[in-house]
């Protein structure tokens, strides 16, 4: 097998879908060819990188009410959807319980959520891109979320600072490391967005990173003191 043959089989080799005979031939060639080993490393790195990409982009606003409206006008689902309904008080009770479970600065987190919704229902409509100035719903959402994020982050870090002595060193280590990782990712995504302001994905990814950090800090601020 020469290098040209190997390049043609590299994806299948890394994928594990080559026949035993071809797999053996590729492995043999890789042992003696540094250049092909580098190519193999690049293919594997690509797969690892793709697997690490953020996969938790949230919609800019709540779409369930729209879906319910469409279901109610849909002859196929009529009669099936809502066959079982729960009294409203039941939901209110659940919401009250959820609200009671919230810990510090929930209002700030709410501000972030409202920023998302307001951005989505702004002049250009829910999640629709494109105003005359080239401002998209995603960038509008980002600019609104950024201010709330920074305020929430400051407040939560201040709360955590006062609680440091009550948390275990192991917890603090994990927390500090996570804050550092998220801050690093946020900074690098912001740098990338500055270099590529037209990027469609980065604003949503940044907002998601903001929310992840706030969620984490909020949970950390509510952690019980070490016993």
């Amino acid at each position: 097998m020469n290098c040209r043959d190997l390049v043609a089989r590299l994806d299948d080799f890394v994928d594990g879908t080559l026949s035993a005979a071809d797999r053996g031939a590729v492995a043999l060639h890789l042992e003696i060819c540094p250049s092909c080993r580098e190519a193999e490393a690049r293919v594997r790195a690509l797969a690892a990188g793709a697997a690490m990409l953020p996969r938790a982009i949230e919609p800019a606003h709540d779409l369930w009410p729209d879906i319910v409206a469409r279901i109610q006008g849909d002859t196929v689902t009529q009669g099936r959807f809502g066959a079982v309904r729960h009294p409203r008080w039941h939901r209110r009770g659940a919401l009250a319980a959820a609200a009671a479970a919230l810990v510090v600065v929930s209002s700030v987190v709410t501000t972030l959520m409202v920023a998302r919704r307001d951005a989505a229902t702004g002049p250009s409509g829910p999640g629709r891109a494109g105003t005359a100035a080239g401002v998209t719903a995603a960038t509008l959402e980002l600019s609104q979320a950024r201010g709330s994020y920074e305020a929430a982050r400051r407040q939560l870090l201040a709360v955590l600072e006062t609680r440091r002595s009550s948390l275990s060193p192991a917890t603090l280590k994990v927390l500090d490391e996570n804050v550092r990782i998220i801050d690093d990712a946020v900074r690098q995504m912001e740098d990338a967005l500055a270099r590529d302001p037209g990027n469609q994905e980065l604003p949503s990814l940044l907002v998601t990173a903001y929310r992840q950090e706030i969620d984490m800090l909020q949970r950390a601020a509510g952690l019980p003191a070490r016993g």
Partner: protein
Amino acid sequence: MTAVTPTSFAVPVDEITVARARAGDEAALEALFRSFEAPVYSLARRLTRSTHDAEDVLQETFLEVVRSIHRFRGDGSLAGWIRKVAVSKALMKLRRRRGSAFEETLPEDLSDDDLALGPYGPATSAAERVDLETALGRLSDVARVVIWLHDVEGYSHDEIAAMAGKTASFSKSQLARAHARLRELLAPGVREEPCT
């Protein structure tokens, strides 16, 4: 090159909720929506690269869930079924948007601008992931879809072929070319010329 990290669709759903949803329980259906809205929306955003289309895909996916969940017998996982519905709706969206996304072919040559991206190595730092995001954004619909479905979602070529109405060899060849293009985008100047 199947992803080794847990899928974002790995959402725990208890059997009681599924049974209630199958019976048309509105609260249970909403609970399913809340569990899967982010994974479905994220997948749709990745495949369509459009907020508007991703919202449509999310809505259409859950309309389909409401219509068909009474037929879901639990042979596979609920998450796997919902994910497949979402992929199908996203592919339909792409076809409607551009005629047929899977009729595209990948350009052979890269511009200098395409090549003006940072290096990429085995370690995946945040900066490298951003580079990969940017590079994925520069791929054609078909290349991006095949890479995402295969490398990230872990679908086989046979499964991608079935969902896209193409052959497995089409999926395979598109993936190989898309990988080659991504590697060129991510490592400018590193040409994978056969050495012998």
